[in-house]
């Protein structure tokens, strides 16, 4: 991808025109100081009510029991784990953009990194919700953690992928959170100086006494670099371990060695799709198209194309291995996915994830806002159904046909899904109100470099 980055910075600027440092600060920080517009309020109302639905649904589940879901003796996981994997996947792009692209010196990342990271944090929050509520006795969730106890001591089962999940996700969340916060410290400094009264006090706290001195900057840069180095392996590890939930089982359709890379590719895929969706809205609402330019979106469209094809490759490989293995159970599972009662879900997934991204071969379509927006949405739908296929179609017809069954979600489960989106967007909307959506200190840095290059070009 670094190739993309260089060609880009050489060809045309990442920041359109030269708004000047002041303008950038004004546009990004200013939006935090004014009152929220009607658009924001409308969005917030929708998101919050969705969240409300989720709260009710979850309360009902915990009060009455998992029986309120559509699961049965054969299909033990349905929407719950589907949503879990889906949200973990979304939570990938942020750290990927901010950490890996930082290490790869991709300057085009600066404008979008902040929002992407925020998205990561909230997505992982949504994801972490599901392992908790899918338990039959969630009030005993703390047994999942190894802690000294009077039971002799009784530890967790370190062989269980669910335990690995607990570690992987909590680590990933912590590191992402710190990285995100660290990135914002200088901007908080700026905000502290621009605001008065209570706001100033709060930003003051958050900026940890930031003084723009060279020494601070130098330490800050080093810290960021270290964090990036720390975060990078996690990006890969989290979804690898999530994929182990399935890969280490004996169920045909789950027991597959291809899962780790396949899941990571899928995660990046869905993550970038979500970033596109969000940023296209944000930049419109905040009128910062000159910061988050079509170039940025185009870059991400290219990533979509690439990862989309990776995912498609994974799908076909799965089919091939199933056939080539000669294992009747394996073969049947994939026949069943493509032709069984859930075939519609399989083909929906296939179209959204493999065919739709192909439109991004065309430069014109990469630049069309409408195509990009719809495309990114469809990819997200497709990726959700990918997880649904993996979880449900493998379970509902496994080894003994006498036990085969069917799964249809109940309203409660749908409510919880809606609620998770509610949580996600509520958090994001609050975020754009209290913290700078664009890391303007980085953008200014990029602008400076741009001016340099311009001068060289002139001379």
């Amino acid at each position, binding site marked *: 991808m670094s190739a993309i980055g260089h060609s880009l910075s050489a060809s045309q600027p990442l920041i359109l025109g030269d708004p000047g440092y002041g303008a950038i600060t004004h546009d990004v920080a200013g939006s935090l100081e004014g009152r929220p517009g009607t658009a924001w309020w409308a969005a917030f109302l929708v998101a919050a009510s969705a969240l409300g639905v989720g709260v009710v649904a979850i309360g009902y589940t915990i009060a009455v029991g998992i029986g309120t879901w559509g699961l049965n003796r054969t299909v033990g996981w349905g929407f719950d784990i589907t949503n879990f994997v889906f949200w973990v996947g979304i939570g990938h792009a942020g750290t990927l953009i901010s950490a890996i692209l930082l290490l790869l010196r991709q300057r085009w990342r600066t404008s979008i990194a902040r929002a992407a990271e925020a998205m990561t944090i909230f997505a992982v929050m949504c994801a972490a919700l599901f392992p908790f509520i899918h338990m039959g006795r969630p009030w005993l969730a703390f047994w999942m953690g190894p802690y000294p106890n*009077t*039971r002799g001591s*009784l530890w967790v089962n370190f062989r269980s992928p669910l335990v690995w999940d607990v570690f992987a996700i909590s680590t990933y969340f912590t590191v992402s959170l710190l990285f995100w916060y660290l990135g914002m410290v200088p901007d908080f400094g700026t905000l502290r100086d621009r605001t008065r009264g209570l706001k100033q006090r709060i930003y003051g706290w958050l900026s940890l006494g930031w003084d723009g001195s060279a020494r601070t900057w130098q330490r800050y840069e080093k810290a960021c670099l270290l964090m990036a180095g720390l975060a990078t392996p996690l990006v890969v590890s989290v979804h690898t371990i999530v994929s182990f939930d399935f890969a280490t089982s004996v169920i045909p359709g789950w027991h597959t060695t291809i899962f780790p890379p396949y899941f990571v590719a899928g995660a990046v895929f869905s993550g970038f799709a979500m970033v596109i969706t969000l940023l296209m809205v944000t930049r419109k609402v905040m009128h910062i198209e000159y910061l988050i330019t079509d170039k940025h979106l185009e870059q991400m469209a290219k990533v979509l194309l690439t990862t989309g094809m990776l995912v498609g490759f994974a799908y076909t490989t799965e089919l091939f291995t199933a056939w080539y293995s000669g294992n009747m159970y394996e073969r049947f599972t994939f026949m069943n996915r493509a032709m069984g009662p859930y075939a519609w879900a399989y083909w929906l997934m296939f179209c959204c994830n493999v065919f739709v991204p192909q439109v991004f071969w065309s430069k014109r379509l990469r630049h069309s806002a409408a195509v990009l927006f719809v495309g990114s949405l469809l990819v997200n739908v497709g990726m959700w159904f990918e997880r649904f296929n993996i979880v449900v179609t493998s379970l509902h017809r496994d080894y003994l046909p006498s036990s085969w069954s069917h799964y249809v979600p109940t309203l409660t489960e749908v409510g919880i899904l809606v609620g998770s989106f509610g949580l996600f967007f509520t958090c994001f909307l609050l975020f754009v109100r209290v913290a700078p959506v664009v890391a303007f200190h980085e953008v200014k840095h990029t602008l400076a470099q741009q001016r340099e290059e311009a001068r060289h070009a002139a001379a």
Partner: protein
Amino acid sequence: MLERLVHRSLLAAACVAAVGLTACEPTNQGYAPEQPIKYSHAVHAGGLKIPCQYCHYAAERGRYAGIPPAGLCLNCHRQVLPDHPEIQKVKAAMEQGKPIEWVRIHQLPDHVYFNHSIHVAAEFDCQTCHGPVESTARVSQFAPLTMGWCLDCHRKGTPEGSRLTPVAATRANRLTDCSVCHH
């Protein structure tokens, strides 16, 4: 300022963790409730040297040690100290035909299966788990009765020199299998 904040937060986290881990492990150790009748083990078991299983006769037969029926008390007390106020209570209970409601001290959770008889057969003294009952006027819970406490012995397996046949000696003669107590 940064350091101070970090310190504070770390400290707070540590406290929460500590409290969480220790406080949420219940034991009733030392629980010594008031009983409806002021019965003294010190007098009977200690002074008169009445063997425990004279009254708790079920202990060697089965799961529960059992609390002696009022009738059993009166076997002696029809003659001995018949007018003692506490004995009067027992008599009253017999006459009204309503049993005495002792307050239970040693409570295991419902999901634990404990069998007295095998431990009696293993020639454990009652005191091992119930403490020096013969010297206490008012009985209290001596042992913590936590799973860890049970395992302390079970890890050792069938006691050496007891008349119990050790069942196939692996993993502490399989006495640490979950289903030994949980089924």
